[in-house]
């Protein structure tokens, strides 16, 4: 049953950056876009299960810290080799100063 979970405060994530959020045995990545919007994806790269939280956010792309594969974190689309499989994304909402993600 999907549920909304508080992931972080809005000021926990710098603009054009991400943080890690673990919940229920799963790991997620929470992004703060240059426009001020928040997004959430699975936390591990689809290529080799490296955590994306140590990667680099460039505009709307997240680059994996291990092999430099890139995803569009808004859609999860794989954008640069060696990643071939899209990243799972999760709905996000902001209430006041809190960021919530909807997890399965």
């Amino acid at each position, binding site marked *: 049953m999907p549920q909304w979970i508080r992931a972080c405060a809005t000021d926990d994530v710098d603009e054009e*950056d991400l943080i890690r959020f673990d919940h229920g045995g799963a790991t997620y990545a929470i992004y703060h876009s240059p426009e001020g919007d928040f997004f959430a994806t699975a936390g591990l790269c689809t*290529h*080799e*299960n490296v955590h994306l939280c*140590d*990667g*680099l956010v*460039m505009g709307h792309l997240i*680059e*994996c*810290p*291990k*092999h*430099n594969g*890139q995803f569009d974190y808004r859609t999860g689309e794989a954008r*640069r*080799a*060696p990643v*071939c499989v899209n990243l799972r994304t999760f709905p996000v909402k902001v209430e006041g100063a809190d960021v919530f993600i909807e997890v399965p």
Partner: protein
Amino acid sequence: MARRDYSLLGPDGARAVETGLAAAEWYHTDVPRKVMKELMQRSDQPAIRDTILLYGCMIGFASAGIALWGSWWCVPFWLAYGVLYGSASDSRWHECGHGTAFKTAWMNNAVYEIASFMIMRNSATWRWSHARHHTDTYIVGRDPEIAIMRPPAFVKLIGSFFGIPEVIDFFPRMIRNALSGPTAEERSFVPQSEWGKVQRVALVYLAIYAATVGLALWMQSILPLMVIGLPRLYGAWHHVMTGLLQHGGLADNVIDHRLNSRTVLMNPISRFIYWNMNYHVEHHMFPMVPYHALPRLHETIKHDLPSPNRSIPEAFAEMWPALRRQLAHEDFFLRRDLPPGAKPYREDFHRAALGEMPDALPAE
């Protein structure tokens, strides 16, 4: 330990997967997120400057070599051109393959394709082999880019300074790739979606070399091959000299880059040709840091790394005896001291994964 089997389809690779040594979590020096973000920032400017300088010098040296063809005065120009063609292409292939040299993606891709052709590596295949090299650096049976296997084959190593074994391997492989796509081993690390690209790239390379050889036959001169192809032989020495130092004589089957990689301080010309890959521990630990930021990364984390070798000769003086010792003792490796205050090497996992790996033998 039994004799190493470097085949990607062999028992050592399978064992690395079974034990968790493959695709393991590697040691990283702690770097504050704010500092790392600053180090990872991309910029077009340094790589545009360096690329204009590189290609400008290549055009100048080749033009002088052609103009002076027939006299001994052409020799130094061809030697200089050869090093840029047959060695600087290695580092451009590497950095642009990572996508970190330029900020702009198409610039990385354009230089990557040109450099791949010059260094005689199928650009579609080698992008994936290098990803594996970073996942499983010097894990026997997993890493397809192990330059010095044990026991070291010195004749082959010396031949590599002139590009001989690589070129001998390249042309039959290119023809096989052009006819039927990747080989069985290549298919173990290249995703199926890319197999067609491997074949297309091989066909393009084949066409360029056929045209160059055709022109040489028509001109009754090797001059076209001095420009395309042969510099991979007569200019390879610099990238082999620097490349062997990356991991030579150090540990294999470990998950701490401080144990299996080497940082060597170098002169500015070698650093330009090598694009700062002399900071090799730093590069493997944080591959998203662009080449132009590696000296700053070195300053940031050097308190946690073995002291770098202070020059290329000093590094060879350390490595070469270790390689000779590996002829008789295949398990021998150099284990450098860490500075006071550095985190200890991650060896607990190695021992468990390898079923109690023997200690390093004392250095000679």
